[in-house]
């Protein structure tokens, strides 16, 4: 009981921090109607700038925090200017992807500036502990809770009683009406982003104080938790964000106390998915979200994930270039000749990764492009396939036909189950759901030690043997090259058949207008689940092949970075265009193999590429489909 009470008090403190992150999401969502994926990156920068101010310049905590808050607020303004302003009137997916690109760039730059390692935060608050009866609470908890609560109250007063605050609220409620009243809605957008930056920085510093450490990858998990809190509270409501943050904080602290600390995040993200499943509009839900049949849908306002239609401009028809299904076989046949002329295992190895990422990128394009549910969790499916081979190949001595079949089937199943919470969602919200899936996948790979061997990974995966081909063994690089190429080509043929069949047409119809698809009598959920099954099967196959090629499976191959990488490939190739996805996946995977020393910069370059592409060619290289 004492433990229980202490955990609740402890949870309130961290929950208050989540509430602050959530408020950043809510403000921006309210005013600009987008989910700012970079909120987590701003949060992380807040912590690191404070860290540097203390560790490098010797500032005391409070001035360091103030400096950090100001700098990150300005960065928030810049974010709006650089990543979003040019995209006003662009397709609905563009602004979200743009914040995703910025987030990647910031995260990777932080790893270069501050090193990827976790570092102790150089300031702390007294560790004195108070007892209330038998329950205890530390001064740190109290200070964090106090600061968080004060910031929330200040924000509430600001939006309630100042002119600017009221203008912000008016813009959030009805931007065009606000504009008619003479409110500069573009300025309001900037203010919202600036405030979101300040809130992000403050929460980053509080988290650094709470956990006493900072690391460059902290942005995404905490950003996702802040988003979960915001969603719990209905996404566009300030009191909702606070309640959501506190509930999440308490829930997660209790869970980690009773289930184990390593499951802390997994539990938070599972809560998020459950939330999406049962109450997609949040606990205090307003009607702002696009749950089917809600108020927005009746008014025709449900956002479309259409790749072409946009809020203002109506772009004319865009051409898409893609191969017919058999074209993948033809390309595959041409590549099959390469080992006859190229003997360098180095080159062949690079090409093998190219094929695997072509497959993975196509699997991402299928859900993200055809169905319009941006997948930021594809690495989890990739990982399930890889671990399936890792687990079944040696101990059970199964041939590759069997292990790959397991990889494909199991991943398809996992993808279908994972997609169930996403069924009621569209647009950006569904994308954040896939991010949660990706994070859960990674945490399971990392922590389910009895099966995955945790951070160690599974070593010594045997060479693949195809029993169906009379026990044919693929031991050399050349042989593996043909194996991977063959499977990838056939899988892409099947995927392309799907996309160009009536099923693919229904997927695109669902993406363009889900409500109209329902009104046309289509079982929309079934079709979405089918898309996830196919996408999961492709990703699972890619993972299985990857495991055989690497001969090692370990969690770091399946991080969110991998998911973002393959989504970037899919966007650059042209969303929904499997040929484009395969081409971009192939090219971006082999490129760094030939440009050594570039590794650290790779994700930054890809992030920049994505940012530029969204401005100049949002339909991707070969055209979205």
């Amino acid at each position: 009981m004492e433990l229980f009470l202490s955990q609740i008090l402890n949870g309130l403190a961290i929950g208050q921090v989540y509430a602050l992150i959530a408020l950043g999401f809510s403000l921006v969502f309210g005013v600009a109607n987008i989910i700012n994926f970079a909120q987590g990156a701003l949060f992380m920068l807040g912590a690191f700038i404070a860290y540097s101010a203390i560790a490098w310049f010797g500032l005391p905590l409070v001035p360091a925090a103030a400096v950090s808050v100001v700098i990150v607020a300005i960065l928030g303004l810049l974010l709006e200017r650089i990543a979003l302003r040019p995209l006003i009137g662009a397709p609905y997916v563009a602004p979200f992807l743009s914040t995703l690109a910025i987030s990647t760039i910031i995260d990777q730059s932080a790893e270069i500036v501050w090193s990827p390692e976790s570092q102790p935060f150089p300031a702390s608050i007294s560790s004195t502990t108070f007892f209330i009866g038998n329950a205890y609470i530390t001064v740190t908890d109290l200070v964090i809770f106090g600061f968080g609560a004060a910031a929330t109250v200040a924000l509430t007063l600001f939006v309630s009683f100042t002119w600017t605050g009221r203008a912000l609220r008016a813009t959030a409620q009805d931007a065009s009406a606000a504009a008619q009243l003479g409110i500069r809605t573009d300025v309001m957008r900037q203010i919202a982003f600036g405030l979101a930056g300040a809130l992000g920085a403050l929460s980053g510093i509080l988290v650094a104080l709470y956990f006493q450490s900072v690391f460059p990858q902290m942005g995404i998990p905490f950003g996702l938790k802040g988003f979960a809190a915001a969603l719990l509270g209905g996404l566009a409501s300030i009191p909702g964000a606070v309640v959501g943050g506190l509930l999440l904080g308490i829930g997660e602290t209790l869970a980690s106390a009773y289930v184990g600390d390593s499951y802390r995040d997994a539990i938070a993200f599972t809560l998020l998915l459950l939330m999406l499943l049962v109450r997609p509009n949040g606990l205090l839900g307003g009607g702002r979200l696009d749950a089917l049949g809600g108020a927005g849908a009746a008014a025709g306002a449900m956002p479309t994930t259409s790749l072409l239609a946009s809020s203002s401009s109506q772009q004319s028809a865009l051409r898409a270039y893609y191969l017919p299904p058999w074209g993948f076989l033809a390309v595959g046949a041409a590549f099959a000749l390469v080992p006859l002329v190229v003997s360098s295992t180095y080159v062949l190895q690079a090409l093998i990764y190219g094929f695997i990422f072509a497959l993975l990128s196509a699997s991402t394009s299928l859900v993200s492009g055809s169905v319009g549910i941006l997948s930021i969790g594809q690495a989890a499916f990739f990982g399930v396939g890889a671990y399936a081979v890792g687990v079944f190949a040696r101990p059970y001595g199964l041939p590759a036909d069997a292990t790959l079949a397991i990889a494909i089937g199991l991943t398809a199943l996992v993808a279908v189950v994972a997609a169930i919470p996403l069924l009621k969602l569209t647009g950006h919200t569904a994308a954040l759901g896939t991010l949660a899936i990706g994070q859960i996948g990674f945490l399971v790979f990392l922590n389910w030690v009895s099966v995955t061997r945790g951070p160690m990974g599974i070593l010594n995966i045997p060479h693949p043997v195809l029993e169906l081909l009379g026990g044919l063994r693929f031991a050399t690089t050349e042989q593996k090259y043909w194996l991977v190429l063959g499977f990838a080509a056939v899988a892409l043929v099947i995927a392309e058949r799907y996309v160009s069949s009536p099923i693919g047409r229904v997927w695109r119809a669902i993406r363009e207008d889900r409500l109209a698809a329902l009104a046309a009598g289509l079982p929309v959920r079934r079709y979405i689940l089918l898309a996830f099954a196919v996408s999961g099967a492709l990703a699972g196959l890619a993972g299985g092949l990857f495991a055989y090629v690497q001969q090692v499976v370990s969690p770091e191959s399946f991080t969110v970075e991998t998911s973002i990488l393959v989504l970037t490939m899919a966007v650059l190739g042209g969303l929904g265009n499997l040929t484009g996805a395969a081409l971009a996946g192939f090219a971006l995977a082999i490129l760094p193999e030939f440009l050594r020393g570039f590794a650290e910069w790779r994700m930054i370059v890809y992030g920049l590429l994505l940012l530029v592409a969204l401005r100049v060619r949002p339909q991707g290289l070969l055209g979205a489909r």
Partner: protein
Amino acid sequence: MTGEAIVVDNVSRVFGGLKAVDGASLKLARGETVAIVGPNGAGKSTLIQLISGVDRADSGTIHVDGVRTDHLPPDRIARLGVGRSFQTSRVFPALTVWDSVLVGVQAGLIETRSGRLIDPVTESAGALLGLPFWRRRVAAQEAAAEAALKLFGDRLWPRRDQPALGLSYANRRRLEIARLLAAEPRYLLLDEPSAGMNPTETEELTHLILDLRRTHPDMGILVIEHKLSMVRRIADRVVVLNQGRVLIEDKPDHALDHPEVVEAYLGRARSGANFQDAHHG
């Protein structure tokens, strides 16, 4: 009270205190054309939302051919043969005209004669392998789609390879109707089909509906329409809705010339924008 008809019985829908539909009852039998008229905000569109399952009634019941539908999801209701258009037409912007109409017939493609859906594995096999049974089905659906597009003369058919987002306002409405008709619905619910159309186009639409009545004598048609001259020509009955309630239900001439209607409906509309041109509400 059921049988071969859509029967709406004492249905209400409240939006945060506002009774958009307030105890409305209505019957649409197969073979008849009923028009709903009423001032903006009368609850006409909401009624279609409720019948099609896009929105849920707070009370009351709705039956389609004897099946209670007020708790069914919209796709199930559509597969019972209820096709509906939206007031702001909903086309699939990036899909071509041809693909859009094919989406309209897809539900028929995967439905067996007993009304069940073909399972996804069989559907995948059919679609990927191009099995003969599947090809026959596809061919039949494509024929239906082509016929539906050609109902609109040279308005849509020559544009079948263009994406829907490039279509004019009137053509989007036509495309939406073509998509509905391709599915060969038993009931057709149209929400202001002539909004945004000029007099010539309205005349075309009127003829289309009159033709449909002839060629599809078993189809029940429900039209929300502001253009009363059109209503008088196409409708067997008119339901006048005001503040969510059925004010009057009668033959067009009786209903439209009823003093209470003129008072409640035209009186208000005249003081505001030109009633004939009211498209929104």
